[in-house]
């Protein structure tokens, strides 16, 4: 992954930050790279385990297909929900343009 022996590079961190929608400046990227490198180095301990044939555990208490009757139930109050939004208009959340604006 990297040439320095660290399990994660600054370029990896910058890419991950972009994927996670975090606008992080370069100074912070460097700082996070060092810290995350230390944490990820610790993760190598599980490489010693033989995990062949082990079933992944995705939830602690297996409950399947939790259904309810298809009947009307009270929902959140629209005005109360919209009142907590940064911007609302015509009973909808208002956002900036989806397509980027040039310049």
């Amino acid at each position, binding site marked *: 992954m990297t040439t320095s022996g660290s399990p994660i590079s600054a370029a990896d961190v910058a890419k*991950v*930050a972009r994927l996670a929608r975090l606008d992080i400046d370069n100074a912070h990227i460097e700082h996070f790279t060092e*810290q*995350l490198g230390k*944490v990820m180095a610790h993760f190598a301990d599980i490489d010693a385990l033989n995990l062949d044939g082990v079933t992944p*555990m995705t*939830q602690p208490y297996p*409950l399947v297909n*939790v259904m309810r009757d298809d009947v009307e139930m009270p929902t959140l109050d629209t005005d109360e929900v919209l009142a907590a939004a*940064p911007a609302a208009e015509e009973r909808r959340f208002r956002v900036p343009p989806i397509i980027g604006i040039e310049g």
Partner: protein
Amino acid sequence: MSSIPTTASEIAAAIAAKEITAREVIDAHLARINARESDIHAFNKVMADEARAHADAIDADIAAGRPVGPLAGVPIALKDNMCTRGVETTCSSKILEGWKPPYDATVVTKLREAGAIVVGKTNLDEFAMGSSTENSAFGPTRNPLDIERVPGGSSGGSAAAVAAGFAPVSLGSDTGGSIRQPAAMCGVVGVKPTYGRVSRYGLVAYASSLDQIGPFATTVADAALITEAIAGHDVHDSTSIPQDVPSFVEAAGQGVKGMRIGRVTDLPEGAEPEVTARLNAAFAALEAAGAEIVDVQLPSLSYALTAYYLIAPAEASSNLARFDGVRFGLRVNAPDTNAMYGATRAAGFGDEVQRRIMLGTYALSAGYYDAYYGKALKVRRLIADDFNRAYEKVDVILTPTSPVVAFKFGEKVDDPMSMYLCDIYTIPTNLAGHPGMSVPFGTGAHGLPVGIQVLAPALGEVPMFRVGGALEAAAGGAQ
């Protein structure tokens, strides 16, 4: 005004017997908050007016002979990641500052129906990510026993509120130890019930397959009382378990005669010598009380930290995607939505939250999923299997809660790995989904409290509370 009892059960009994009023109880606790909160910072918000009004309503009901709930007039503090309709719920994050939820969490509804009075919302590590409460965007909480030291975390405010006498009981949430570890560091009782025992509806999610709500209290019986009040199936949480809730309060007084207590012979090292000494004293006390000590092995336990710090951040990276500046909380304006997301999230989340989101995003990203997240889920299975094998031989397992006593501010906050190691004994139970509690059991280095952790199998709260009650009785006798 007669003197105010210290425990929730005594307060409820005294109010029901008209020996004191709910208003007197609330005023006494608000006076304590006024006197010491500026030093402790347990709360993000003290709900003084709401609490007084609620107390007056309960007193009016009692005066008129109308029925009141079993916790009528008991003050309770709530970790500020539980939704309270119309009252700010911040998760100690700038990204949710000022947000007023449009609904109550199920635990809040249940507590109010039982007559408990919410006195405030307590401070936490931002989005419950941390072990010291230093990651709060609104400043750290101080340990009431030594204000130079952390109260533990992430539910540090809830632990401190009970330790300082601001409320007899409080609620926290525990994803990797966030109730038990601060309970140990503040010298109070803390309980993480079985995953699914308590509804998570209205708990702002950190890691959904690990999060569980539970109480802090000064006594095991009070912790049992509050666990009973909040437990049970909830149609709003599809992971809540459809099982009846037995009497935990009764269990707390039943003693341990004939019980088998597990001692882990391959427990990961790292505990301070004074902490290990208290653990040995706990085994001796339980043996003296009639229990049998049985050696067990949990060979995968030392891999729990890695599994946890892959699984929890992976789930967090997904859960926290909802904080995007659209529906609630902070928005940093930008020319298009993508730029708005990035700017809002960078400005709104603190360093630790950003670290965990990035860790989780990385662990889930194409090319690394199998190497990290996929492997972690298999390790999780090995850990759960280890516990389940051990519980064929024993009723509960005893370990330290935290390897260290409360540490000083700044010691670990910029070294994530050393902070993460604080949770080495609490994390495995979250991965397995089992219950665990911390009971104060004497003191360690610097005269600071040491907590002993009682672990039990899924839905094993009854044996857990039995042992917790016996430890409490023995600790009282020993000190």
